[in-house]
């Protein structure tokens, strides 16, 4: 109950701040349309009784007229009220809530720690919050609230008329409903709990479904003849979910059936009671018809509305729990140090790291220092933690133990604005934004997003200008295939855009994570040659598989098993022998075929 109050306070708070009038309108409409129900019961009785009198010639038709008018009003008004409610108020609320909720949720992303996006537990919360909070809000307001008010007014008014006949009639009418509502609340809660557990299954077939319609996958499936197998897998995953649902549904249906029978049988009991009272002369024929009808229609519907509300509330309040949990996901913390450090040395001090929710330690006591202005290559085999190390350095993940220092201070001491200006990263899976080319590069430094001059300079440095000039609208060309009119550029060209992005804003620390994996050899070679110029005066980390590139850096760190195993210049490491020399020679040997070296 406390939860319900809290949720409604939250909801109404949003509505009140956006459009207070809507709340007022909702309540008034709901009350009026509720009130028309008992009035109609009364009017029905009068219309029937007096109508017979008119037919018998006991009263004049003119005397009868006011009742007919009332009849018309009572029959028409509720319809109009509900029209107003569902075609105006409901969609209007939907719009307000959609903007307000989504807006708040999206703003949370800014503060939320990145690591949640890589954790299943958090993703489930995020997914459900995004999927359901909005719909839940819509159900809770105006639907449930409105129905609750309408039904309350209607039930009270109708029960009053029964109470007039016999004081105990309201009790025989209401008691079975209370029991039924209680039972179905419990049952429903269970089915929703059950459905909560489908999330992983649903993700599994959704992800597979996305593959089955993505063209790269479709092509490969075709080549390997695996389409049918995959489609069958999709089908059986979906079928598994469906069967599970049906099994549970039909099991629950039996329970539901029993509980619904309680009020149903009470219904037949009550109308028979009325018939008996009538036969004893306790009520007139008009009353009998009007009241019997109301037991089958308006009273029944209004009371059942409560059953529905209680059934659904559990589910929707639950959705709000995800919404709340989402907002409670841990957020980034930043320090107070608001000045850019002069010295941009980087120090990893006994850093250990395990991805949250996994048990394999990726970094074991990783320690190294990179001096301010130094250019360092980091090499190592696949899956040894190079990219993880970058994520830690950028503050996307927190070390389990140990410390990362920049300019001699712990990374966490720096303020958000410093952190955002410190690094120029090029990720292995860099982002390809479907926005204009200029913006794609400009986002590297938000202060200069409109600074054409700076963007042009970055383009030039990364050799983006070479193909940019060939695009129809130059820098204003929309990139990517997501939207109509967007131009898709090649993987290598995207990589150059990502590199240009890293040059924006003159960030003191450059981090390049395999920046040439999609470049052809000539382009790669060019980038190496330009590296010195690009990184002049900066601290630079160059992660690579292609060992030729180690020539462009002063020092090489070899990472293996989550540790630095070797460190030194190319010559030193070659002299040492070991992993680096092995790797280098294995690549070099191909260029030293038959003794000829180019």
């Amino acid at each position: 109950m406390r939860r319900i109050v809290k949720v409604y306070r939250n909801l109404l708070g949003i509505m009140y701040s956006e459009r207070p009038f809507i709340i007022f309108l909702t309540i008034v409409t709901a009350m009026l349309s509720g009130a028309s129900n008992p009035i109609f019961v009364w009017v029905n009785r009068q219309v029937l009784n007096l109508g017979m009198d008119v037919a018998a010639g006991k009263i004049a038709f003119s005397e009868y007229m006011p009742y007919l008018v009332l009849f018309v009003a009572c029959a028409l008004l509720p319809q109009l009220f509900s029209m107003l409610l569902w075609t105006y108020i409901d969609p209007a609320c939907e719009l307000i809530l959609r903007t307000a909720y989504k807006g708040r949720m999206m703003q949370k992303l800014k503060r939320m720690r990145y690591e949640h996006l890589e954790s299943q537990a958090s993703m489930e919360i995020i997914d459900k919050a995004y999927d359901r909070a909005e719909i839940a809000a819509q159900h809770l307001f105006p639907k449930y609230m409105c129905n609750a008010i309408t039904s309350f007014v209607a039930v009270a008014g109708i029960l009053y008329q029964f109470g007039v006949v016999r004081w105990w009639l309201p009790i025989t009418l209401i008691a079975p409903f209370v029991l039924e509502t209680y039972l179905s609340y419990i049952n429903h809660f269970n089915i929703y709990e059950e459905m909560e557990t489908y999330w992983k299954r649903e993700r599994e077939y959704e992800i597979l479904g996305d593959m089955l319609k993505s063209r790269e996958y479709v092509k490969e499936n075709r080549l390997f003849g695996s389409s049918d197998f995959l489609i069958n897998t999709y089908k059986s995953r979906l079928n598994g979910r469906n069967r599970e649902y049906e099994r549970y549904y039909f099991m629950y249906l039996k329970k539901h059936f029993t509980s619904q029978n309680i009020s149903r049988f009470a219904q037949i009991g009550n109308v028979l009671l009325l018939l008996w009272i009538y036969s004893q002369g306790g009520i007139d024929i008009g009353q009998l018809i009007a009241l019997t009808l109301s037991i089958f229609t308006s009273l029944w519907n209004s009371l059942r509305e409560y059953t529905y509300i209680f059934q659904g509330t559990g589910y929707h309040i639950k959705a709000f729990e995800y919404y709340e949990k989402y907002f409670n996901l841990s957020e980034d913390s930043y320090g107070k140090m608001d000045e850019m450090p002069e010295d941009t040395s980087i120090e990893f001090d006994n850093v250990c790291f395990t991805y949250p929710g996994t048990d394999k330690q990726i970094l074991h006591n990783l320690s190294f220092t990179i001096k301010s202005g130094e250019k360092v290559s980091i090499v190592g085999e696949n899956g040894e933690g190079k990219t993880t190390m970058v994520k830690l350095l950028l503050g996307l993940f927190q070390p389990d133990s140990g410390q990362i220092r920049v300019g001699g201070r712990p990374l966490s001491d720096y303020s958000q604005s410093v952190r955002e200006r410190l690094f120029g990263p090029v990720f292995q899976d860099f982002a390809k934004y479907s926005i204009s080319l200029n913006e794609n590069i400009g986002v590297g430094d938000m202060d200069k997003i409109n600074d054409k001059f700076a963007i042009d300079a970055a383009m030039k440095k990364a050799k983006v200008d070479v193909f940019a000039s060939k695009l129809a609208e130059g820098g204003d060309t929309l990139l990517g295939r997501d939207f109509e009119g967007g131009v898709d550029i090649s993987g290598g060209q995207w990589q150059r855009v990502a590199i240009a992005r890293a040059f924006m804003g003159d960030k003191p620390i450059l981090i390049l994570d395999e920046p040439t994996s999609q470049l052809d050899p000539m382009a790669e070679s060019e980038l190496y040659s330009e590296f010195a110029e690009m990184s002049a005066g900066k601290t630079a980390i160059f992660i690579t598989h292609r060992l030729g590139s180690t020539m462009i850096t002063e020092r090489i760190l070899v990472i293996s098993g989550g540790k630095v195993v070797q460190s030194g210049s190319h010559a030193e490491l070659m002299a040492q022998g070991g992993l680096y020399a092995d790797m280098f020679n294995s690549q070099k040997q191909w260029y030293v075929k038959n003794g000829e070296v180019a």
Partner: protein
Amino acid sequence: MIDRTTRLEQNIEHENKPSIKHLFRLWVFVFSSTKVISSIYLGLFIVLSFLRPTLAFLWGKYITTVKGYTKGHNLLPAVFLLIGYFIISFAADLIESYMAANGDGDLEQLDLVQANRQQELMHSKMFKKLSRVSSEYFEIAKLNDKTEQVFNFAGDGWGGVNRQVMLNSYIVIAKIVSVLSIAASLFVFNPWLCLIVLIAPLPTLWTTTIGEKLRFKFVRKNTKLVRRIDYFQSLMLSSASKEMKTLGLYDFFYNKWKTHADEYTMKEKKLIRNQTAIEMANSFLVNSANVGSMVFAITLFTTGQLSLGELGAAISLVGTLMNDSSQLLSSIASFLSKKNNAAQFFDLMDLPEQKDEGKAMGTFDVLRAKGLKYRYPLTGRYVLNGIDLTIKKGEKVAFVGENGEGKTTFVKLITGLIQPSDGELTINGTSAGELNPIDRYRNQSTVMQNPSRYFTFTVRDNVYLGDTMRARDEGAIDAALKFAGFEGQDGDEMLGKDIGGIDLSGGQWQKLAIARAAYRNRDFIILDEPTSNLDPLAEAEVFQKYIELAEDKTVIFVTHRISVAALADRIVVFKGGKVLQDGTHEELIAQDGEYSRLYKEQAKWYNR
């Protein structure tokens, strides 16, 4: 430009005109996909349409009976009527609430069962279609748009056009039955009453059509806007958020999202206003007619033309009829309004398929290209502009050249994913167009440039996907993983972090793709830059293994790394969509042309 590609372009550009024909095709399509459940549904709807009028009669009968009751007489007939009434209304309510006949079901409804099953069967059919469409269409961005569009409105269980079309058609059929039967019975009471009630809802047909049209237009006009809104939302939740976090880009993208979302909201507000006006007017009209006919019935009653029982039955019938006929009309209108979607649906579903027929390729012997040209559909430039090349069984050939010179395109032609625009390509002497395309796929092992990452499957499943036609061979999977040098992860680990599995590094994924091709184990092997993400040791090992493969295996590999190419028996240099050089490493170095230029450019980094 008129060439073989032109026909393809015409097919993909073709758009069906919205018509009833496609709507009925869609209906048949969905019905035949979900025969059992659809029949049950339709049956229940028809039963329901008889129950309501029956109730009205029982009610009238009951009133007459109690009216005629005088104290001390037998109450039993009234009791039985009441119980009969109760049982039928119970049944009707149950059917109605479980089927969500009004279209607004909730989770607990039986309708979800139907919706789920429809989703299962429709999606499978749609995916099947995609897996059969001629693969060349996948080179065209427009196919993406079509697919995206169709999957947006069709296939989904709850919100899909399939469910709407079916539900509306059930309602139409059921309501025709009930409207006719009720109208006939009302006619018995009073012909005028019947007429008023039948005519009154006609405006519904018009208002619903207008309303649906407004909505359709709105959706069509704003699809792009919605796509942008969705794009920015999902972008902020994607792996791009790494970058957003480090560079502080959230506000920038949030504002982009907000601008578009607000714009959409403004437009939708206007739509709602218009729809409200129409609906209100319609509802007012229909309800007035409804109430009017009740008042008419009451007047008849006061003049003694209807008895009290008849009045009760008549009012009840009027209400049911009014309700049913407006539902009938609005369902007809919304059924018809889906013809646009139906046309779009068949734009995709009618695309020509790649059939498992034609001349079998057999084991690979020789491939010949002569004056081979290719341009991507809907583009005007020949990416391949006259390739002349012969590859024989057992050769290990490397394709080199800079980006965009046509290597990958040529590889796609060899695999059969695309067909020549012009010129000649023969395999074992048969021209590519006459070969059975599926058979070509069956005879080769491939590693694509961007290999698929089959999330939600285990590492070993990913390998098994290389050949699902033969029984799963765990030993061969082990051997394939070993061949690719895949290590560091347990083979039974589920892949995909967001479902609680693990993710692999780029290099590990690539090794997995190599293992997949190795598991497939065919004699004709095509590798398109299979090692771009591998570390040097792994790369050397992989290539050495391919070169050392048995004599009867033909290997074609595309690479950027000249050092790797040097391992091949033969090197083909692509430039400007043509073959520029062709020979062994030593020969090409000696020629001192493009090849040696590329070689030197890369070797200099190792020259120390």
